């Protein structure tokens, strides 16, 4: 996995996603939203680096324990 983008790049991602999805983000909220977005990408990075073969794992939308 390449390293996570820097905060300025993340802020651009958030702005693009905001426009395409039609979710209005008040400028005052933007730093906190960007930080939470960074944490979600960090979580994704952890999963990708887990060593688990995700491509070979069935994805179930109806979860059964």
């Amino acid at each position: 996995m390449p390293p996570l983008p820097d905060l300025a790049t993340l802020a651009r991602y958030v702005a693009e996603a905001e426009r395409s999805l039609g979710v209005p983000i008040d400028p005052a909220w933007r730093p906190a939203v960007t930080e939470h977005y960074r944490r979600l990408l960090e979580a994704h990075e952890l999963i990708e680096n887990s060593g688990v073969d995700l491509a070979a794992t069935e994805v179930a939308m109806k979860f059964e324990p």
Partner: protein
Amino acid sequence: MTAEWADAVGIAEAVRSRRSSAAEVIEAALGRIEREDARYNCFTAVVAAQARRDAARIDADIAAGRDPGPLAGAPFAVKNLFDIANLTTLAGSKINRDNPPAQRDASVVAALRRAGAVLLGALNMDEYAYGFTTENTHYGPTRNPHDLSRSAGGSSGGSGAAVAAGLVPLTLGTDTGGSIRVPAALCGIFGLKPTFGRVSRDGVALFSATVDHVGPLARSVRDLACAYDLMQDEPVSPTLAQGIGGLRIALAAGYFREHAEPQAVEAAERVAEALGARSKVTVPHALEARAAATIITGAEGAGLHLKNLRARPGDFDPMTRDRFLAAALLPASIYARAQAMRRAYRDEVAALFKGIDILVAPTTPIAAPTIGQDTVSLSSGTFPARAHVGRYTIPFSIIGLPVISVPVPGYALPRGVQLVAAPNREGVLFRAASFVEKRGVAAFTSPR
């Protein structure tokens, strides 16, 4: 034990044997709420008139020789995301105030009322159940009865604090990443998160559809068992006297001992020792499971509230809004990869449980944080306090395992320990919880 601290089963025994009346019990509980709840901020609604009618009906049934049910006259209350007929289901939000009142009770609320339990009201929570501290901007924080400057935990914070404060003996909550177990631990009471799918969510406002669970919180194991028996089909109460003979019990190592206060680890060791645990096991990929849960619950919650995030984001609680907005922007592929991680992790943990019956782990790595506390400093580093509270609970709920959090006395602030089993093995958990309760290793301690 005074009526204030009697458990629900004990109250019902007194009412059924006419040592007290349901009307007396309910008047006393309503009086406690009236006098004391301003300190804790547990209740967002009290249904006093309905409760008095229910109590009168129970007393009339007893007088007429009819069976009033196993929880006759026992007061209970529910997190305000359960439907209560004629009340608007807030789910901790300002937005839901615009909704019409519920037409009928949630299935589990109806089940407890049919058994004679008397509903007293609805309880505070984090907005849309997205939090671990019940610091609700719209309705105020719920305060921990053991220290009013501290959080009661969340998201079922009102459910935890109302039981610990002696306002009611029994409450219902929901648990997505720890929202029953965390308030149970931080308030010093017992909490059950059943196997995913075992208890009906009919009439419950969801946060994350593939992860949400319904369960009880109480001051005794037999209350948890009684409530659970009334909400699903396979009774566990008969297991309480069975002891722990033949059970293979292990202490969780690795992830579940890291980034914690020493007392949290010690409490788990005490319970494991009392249960005769013979081994330590490492749960593979617990950290990655927590990461998957963060993505899945955020994305599912944001999807559920997308219409309002677009139309009226300013009406959300700032404590949840920014996380919902960030999760709403995630690519679907990231959500799908998180679901794949969850499935792989489920299989790994299922293999682990082939060799053991019960896994013991701390419920939270820290005791109750103070209200408004943003970070917590431990010997291993500094962490976001609110998220860190859920570190040890999330890896079990994301794969739907049954867990009982038991309170471990002897510390300045309450500590909880999780007993975890394979899916649908609640019976072995109740055997172990009852065993440590009878020996005083797990016990509710009054805050007064």
